[in-house]
């Protein structure tokens, strides 16, 4: 997960538990990355470039990342033990090749207003192409304003 122009790039990673992530900084300013999420508490002291070894995520759950210098920076690492997982494309679709069977499906979105229990469903795969569609009933929370110069929040 890179840091480019004072944003995390990408702003969301979905990773299997016990895997590792590197957090290089491609900006010319230093960043200081932290998480106080129960699933992984850590901090990367002030740095530029790629000075640190990868960070290992050994606990399932959501890890919210911030920068202690630039409060507007916000990103998520979603650590999962699910056998099949991924991040949806921009159009909200995701697909996987799975053996036939019955599956629990859950989705998560950082700006969803729904409770987690309302974002779960079950699907039974019996033939080659099975499609499950989940609709969010409530609109997403507002995204951070786009294109706002990062130099605008010095005070």
């Amino acid at each position, binding site marked *: 997960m890179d840091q480019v*122009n*004072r944003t995390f790039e990408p702003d969301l990673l979905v990773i299997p538990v016990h895997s590792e992530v590197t957090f290089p900084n491609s*900006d*010319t*300013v*230093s960043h*200081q990355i*932290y998480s*106080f*999420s129960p699933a992984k508490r850590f*901090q990367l*002291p*002030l*740095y*530029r470039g790629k000075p640190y070894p990868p960070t290992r995520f050994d606990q399932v759950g*959501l890890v*919210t990342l*911030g920068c*202690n*210098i630039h*409060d*507007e920076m*916000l990103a998520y690492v979603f650590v999962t033990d699910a056998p099949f997982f991924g991040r949806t494309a921009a159009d909200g679709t995701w697909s996987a090749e799975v053996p036939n069977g019955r599956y629990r499906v859950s989705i998560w979105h950082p700006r969803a207003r729904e409770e987690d229990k309302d974002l779960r469903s079950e699907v039974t795969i019996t033939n080659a192409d099975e499609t499950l569609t989940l609709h969010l009933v409530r609109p997403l*929370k*507002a995204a*951070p*304003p*786009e*294109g*706002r*110069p*990062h*130099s*605008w*929040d*010095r*005070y």
Partner: protein
Amino acid sequence: MGSLLKPASFLAAVLAAMSAAGHATAADWEADLDGRLVSVNGPLPIIDGGLGNTRFGADQSGLHLGRARFAITQNLGEVWSLSLDASSWGDHDKIPVGLTEGYLLWRPYPRAGYRLRVKTGAFYAPVSLENRASGWESPYTLSYSAIDSWLAQEVRTIGAEAQIDWLGRHSGHDFDIGLTGAVFGWNDSAGAAIATGGFTVTDRQSVLWGRVGKPGVQPVRAAEPFREMDARAGVYGGLEARYLDRLVLRFLHYDNRADPTAVDFVSHTVAWDTTFNSAGLRFDGDRGWTGIFQWMSGTTHISPHGADERWPFRARYVLLSKRFGNHTVSARFDWFAVDGFRDDGEDDGWQTGHASTAAYIFQPNARWKFALEWVHVVSTSYNREEFGQGDAIDSQTQVQLAVRYALGSKSLSE
């Protein structure tokens, strides 16, 4: 020169210490040069002894230095940093180059969703919602609102400020909330310029221990806002709430707790007991829209040699801005008023007025910025007539074309 030498030698010591520690990341620095082509009509500005409401006035149409600035932030180890912001404004201050801000910041890592920040040094109180760019500048206009122009002129925290933030957005909520408190000194003369000269619409920030007005020229004379006269610390407390990085609300109560009876017999200046409340709201919408509202209401009070005089003041503004890529178009409307009450029942030094500001800013890249701004101020000033500086009712128009060139690691990353 003393105030210049001290920070410079401190910085040198700090840089030496950092290279010894071997753990430093390089300092972030920025150097800007801002030139102006000005066309103005109206009275002389306050810095030159007049009672004009804009930064330039009288016969000052022509080319001017807008601001020459050098700023540096040096991280000191893991959670400390030192920031210095030095400027020259090309006018007749007694300090030609000085610091507008200089402070040490301690910013430990957040714990369980809370984070503490402590600033020690000299810096702006968290009031302005428009001056959000580096150097306490506005990305919307060249000239600041009446409220922020006054803060630029007379108000600075020289002391320590602590802020505790609850980082709600980093713990799955929609809000961040911050509480701020500060203890400060050397601001016992804040209020002199607003009482005698009234509100202005300017981007001239006083440097630390600099001067407002011109020695010997009534009524402002040489106001020196950064004085400690009574050994009583001033305080402020504030609250900030942010919703999804889009809506910001701020409230601050400020009291310099100056003893209004204190008199400095050497400089013949008095202490100005100044308190104010300020509140503001800023909304960053979709498609580049920003709306800002700020309000302030306060009083400054002197009571030397048994006399008693007070000047309640209030100001507010609305600003609307739209960004189109590298282009920003903004409009702001300010209202302001200062009343003057003497203990003998006479009015003294009151001012009322309003200002319209329209600005276009083009920032093609991090290095270059071009701005065109029109400011029109209509004001009624008791002192302008009283001191023979023109009619009580006056209107003033200032048009500025600004070109700014920036260098440095900070500007490159923006």
